[in-house]
């Protein structure tokens, strides 16, 4: 049984020009201990699909799916109170902007202990000990001192480490990382990716990496889903995706990488791909 299984997910938003379909019939499944990358450009619906899983979309969004199962349990029509117990504990998420996703008014120690208090009901001393342990795990220096720091006193990379510590605080079964390294420098990006992958290997959780960076995909993923304009264009394991891409869109994306440049101009996506999404029937 897959850890997370989504069949035929569609998300629509109402706009002045009628319903806009942000995600169009996407099916995704992740197994335990697997790293799945969802690649796509901005507007491809990759984040929206995952926000739908987390139940974080505004009520104006219309979400329909044939099935949305987490460990065989329906999470589409789940009771809000039940969902709150699940989210943040068994399914956790890391967002793109580390500094913006922490609350600037509270110390990072308070923010991580809040998770431990609500989901695990730990006592004050236990919480502190666990928080220090988590900070050590994500590689923050002087963890006990750090607990009383505010987000603005830390760098972007350190804030992202705090976010990861909060996300893994309750040993989640599934971690969704939404562009976790886009706002960071390359050297810090490497450290954060290494940290995520080593945590994933250690705990055996499922990991979904949402990204637009083919380099990040190549460095982390087991399996890849390529999305374009809300549709799934291709799904393949990472090696066959890079070696032998099936859909024209993936071919175009790979050709647009500067390192694959031939001659003195880059191949643009339009050279391969006319913009009409073709569904990924050919697996």
């Amino acid at each position: 049984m897959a850890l997370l299984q989504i069949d035929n997910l569609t998300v629509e938003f109402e706009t002045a020009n009628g319903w806009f379909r942000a995600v169009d019939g996407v099916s995704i499944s992740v197994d335990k201990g697997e790293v799945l990358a969802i690649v796509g450009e901005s507007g491809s619906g990759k984040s929206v699909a995952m926000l739908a899983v987390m139940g974080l979309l505004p009520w104006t969004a219309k979400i329909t799916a044939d099935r949305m199962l987490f460990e065989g349990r329906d999470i589409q029509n789940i009771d809000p109170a039940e969902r709150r117990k699940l989210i943040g504990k068994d399914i956790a998420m890391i967002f793109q902007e580390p500094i913006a996703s922490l609350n600037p008014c509270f110390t990072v120690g308070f923010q991580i202990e809040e998770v431990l208090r609500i989901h695990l009901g730990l006592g004050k001393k236990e919480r502190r000990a666990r928080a220090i342990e988590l900070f050590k795990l994500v590689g923050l220096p002087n963890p006990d001192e750090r607990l009383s720091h505010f987000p603005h006193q830390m760098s972007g990379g350190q804030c992202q480490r705090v976010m990861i510590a909060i996300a893994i605080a309750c040993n989640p079964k599934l971690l969704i990382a939404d562009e976790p390294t886009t706002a960071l420098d390359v050297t810090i990006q490497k450290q954060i990716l290494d940290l995520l992958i080593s945590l994933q290997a250690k705990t055996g959780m499922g990991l979904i990496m949402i990204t637009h960076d083919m380099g990040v995909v190549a460095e982390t993923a087991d399996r890849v889903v390529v999305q374009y304009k809300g549709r799934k264009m291709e799904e393949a394991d990472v090696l066959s995706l890079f070696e032998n891409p099936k859909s024209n869109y993936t071919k175009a994306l790979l050709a647009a990488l500067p390192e694959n440049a031939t001659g003195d101009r880059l191949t643009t996506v339009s050279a391969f791909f006319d913009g009409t999404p073709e569904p990924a029937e050919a697996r």
Partner: protein
Amino acid sequence: MTDTLTKNTMLEVRNIKRDYELPGGLFKPKKTIHAVKGVSFSLERGKTLAIVGESGCGKSTLARMLTFIDEPTSGELYIDGDKIDTRPGHLTSEMRQKVQIVFQNPYGSLNPRQKIGDVLGEPLAINTGMSAAERRDRATEMLVKVGLGPEHYNRYPHMFSGGQRQRIAIARALMLNPKLLVLDEPVSALDLSVQAQVLNLLADLQDEFGLTYVFISHDLSVVRYIADEVMVMYFGEAVEYGTRDEVFSDPKHEYTRTLFKATPRADVESIRERIAKKKTASAA
């Protein structure tokens, strides 16, 4: 020392420095931040110099000094054979016309209440005595050149996508026919497919107008593609400086090597290697 200036040198920078003073408080002494600690380089006409480094290494401060937004604390700046007097009030409008800048974030660098036509016409209105009709013609012409259309003249920035906005920012920078264009991370906010289009546009414009680029980036794959020369900055110092092939094939400084190692590689061999490593790790 002016003998090193050849006719072909577009830009020469000698031992340029920039300090920022942090004001002290009642119990806090004054502090000086050395953002750029003595950087020198020279760049030939029509070539591209890429400046690489992590955030806070002083690369954007250097860009601001090259475009006269910030005054250097010390050091000399030669552009197109002339020594630049960077003191406030001593800059002529011809000097300002020679150097233009494109900023990183196309969402932040365009005024949301200004129509595209006005964005493009403003540099002409300030720096030249062109009539409104002339300005309009020039702006429309430039829109076509950067791959947009005359119909975009009366639109507002919010009606454009990120890639289109970056084209507008590039068009604005080119309105005064500059010789040197400073590009501060021009593609890092863009999607991969759009990034390729903008990089191609920059290459086309360089060929057409003989532009010299100072290209600031943290993405080594982009740098490798676009640069003739590469400078790596680390904590305000240039730790590595040479032609692209020198720097990429034989990095001298420890930091450059760290940078290369940290860059994600998207070739099939390294994926294969990683998967093999993972298999042996899980088997053990």
